[in-house]
């Protein structure tokens, strides 16, 4: 009975939907996750472009879904991104780099791009670089699937939704929920570790706390993270405020959030 609704996406295009997988500046972690799960996608999609994994890639042709990993950190990243956006029906930012900017944004907040470039590649380097930014700073992003790397089940669910023409449901409830559901002893309470589970988006299944380590926030912030309260609690546990701030924002977060927290915490002290 449901068949009439479901196959419509395919009837419309008369062809199998196409996907493209691109990497900008990032560690290729998400590309690997996509590659590892490509077998499950292959029956339903055609891989039009995946330069990381195949040598023959279509260029300049429209695709249904473009998955983009990495942040925009160089001028050619931006050029590519604009081109990808122009050709894609749905643009999915995959991984923290693409969604939040990751460490290249969060960890380098206090340094100028030029000084970073000079320190890393020397003063006469021909490399051009931009301050690292997430995709949404430059183009419209339809789906933000964070992760470090992304969760394969979420990737498949996102693809399943987009193939049927609707936006997927992605929860950004905190890591704490997943941690409690696994019945881990709380490392923040029992061991006073600087665990960022309360302010970090879940999806990883609370991987680090499960092994007794503090969550360091690699999936980026959860929905409306209570950063000020988190900082207060870590400070009470004896952590230096400067360290707390760098931990809270190491994996990229919107500038407005960073500025707000900085302002509020300065006002408090």
């Amino acid at each position, binding site marked *: 009975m449901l068949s009439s609704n479901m196959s419509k996406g395919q009837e419309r295009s008369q062809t199998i939907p196409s996907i493209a997988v691109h990497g900008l500046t990032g560690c290729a972690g998400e590309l690997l996750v996509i590659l590892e799960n490509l077998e499950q996608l292959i029956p339903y999609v055609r891989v039009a472009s995946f330069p990381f994994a195949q040598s023959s890639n279509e260029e300049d042709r429209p695709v249904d879904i473009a998955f983009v990993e990495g942040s925009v950190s160089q001028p050619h990243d931006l050029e590519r991104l604009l081109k990808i956006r122009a050709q894609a029906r749905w643009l999915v930012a995959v991984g923290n780099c693409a969604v939040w900017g990751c460490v290249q944004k969060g960890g380098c907040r206090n340094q100028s791009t030029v000084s970073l470039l000079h320190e890393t590649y020397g003063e006469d380097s021909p490399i051009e670089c931009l301050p690292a930014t997430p995709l949404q700073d430059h183009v419209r992003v339809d789906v933000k699937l964070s992760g470090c790397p992304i969760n394969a089940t979420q990737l498949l669910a996102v693809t399943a939704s987009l193939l049927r023409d609707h936006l997927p449901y992605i929860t950004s409830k905190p890591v704490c929920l997943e941690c409690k*559901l696994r019945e881990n002893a709380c490392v*923040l309470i029992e061991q006073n570790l600087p665990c960022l589970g*309360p302010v970090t988006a879940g999806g990883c299944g609370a991987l680090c706390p499960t092994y007794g380590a503090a969550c360091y926030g690699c999936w980026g912030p959860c929905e409306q993270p209570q950063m000020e309260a988190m900082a207060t609690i870590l400070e009470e546990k004896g952590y230096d405020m400067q360290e707390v701030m760098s931990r809270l924002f190491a994996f990229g977060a919107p500038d407005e959030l960073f500025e707000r927290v900085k302002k509020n915490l300065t006002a408090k002290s």
Partner: protein
Amino acid sequence: MERTATFKKDQFEQFFCLLKSFGKVFAPVRVSEKSFSFKSIESPSQIAFEALRTILPPKKFFFQQHEPILSYDENGIHEVKPETQQQVIFGVHPCDLAGLGIMDKVYTASPPDPHYIARRQATMLVGLSCMPDKHCFCKSMGTDSPTSDYDLFLTDIGDKYFVQIHSANGLNLIESMPDFFSRPEAQEDQTFKDFWTTRDKAFSSHFESENLPAIMDMEWNSQVWDDLGNRCLSCGNCTPVCPTCYCFDMVDVASLHANRGERVREWDSCQFVGFAKVAGDTNFRPGPVDRLKFWYRHKLHGFEDPHGLPTCVGCGRCTESCPAGIDDIVNVVLRLQGKPSILVTDKKKTQAGGCGTSCGDCQCDTADGDQHA
């Protein structure tokens, strides 16, 4: 149905085998220096008899963290029947039994929930007595003796367990091994009574609960909520650990196969920002202060509905698992009642330099610990 029996502690192994004859046995197991969890066990040696509270309460056995409710495919929409197994939950303390009593009410209320009921019916609940620690306040909530639809309850009376038999299932099990159990002797009855008297006196945390709903109503705009709420992480730890938090979310999980998928029920928390959001991004509880006091009200006031009861059972799990130290129910209630109390936010203010006098203008920690209005 209420009969009593005893058996020797050193013969616990045999009692355990008896439980196993009913189904898979789950009991508190130590998972860290301070934490315990109900897990499947094969031998009594795995049981942490000393466990006061597990990380998750026993509601997880009936109201599962994640369970498919519906599925759909080419042939239509299907109800997913709950997978059940005969099981025994051993070592459930009175607060958790009371918690299950509240869950029973919610999930049997019309329309009843087939998943919850099927799992509950396949389960034998075996309670175990306990001695309160500083976070226990079941006595204040009136949930300090075994209630709800349990099967057996064991009270530690020294070298023996005193067994209260509360259900037909429980009685059947006991009668299947009649030689193993004895009728309690007069001395044992006395030891049993003494145990509960001693336990009753052992509570260090207490408040009067008679006026709780009224207090919660009149203190809805209390400064306490702002002070605590501003420390709230909105991490949601307080709700999964609560024996009576029954809120859930329902989500669709689409499969890549075009016509198939599932509709899944998952635990949710009123502490998450999206919980009370409606279309157009209107949020009826946008900030942590709104959400925290909403949760407190549910726990301590209860709802004007057929369930009608405060839903806190005094287990102390939220107090112990709140990273911000704000789920200090006992002290919050005392504060709202205008009695001596110390909250985490007071310590903060004192450290920051309270005036050190009873000026009435600050909430500094004065000699009697009392609150300034």
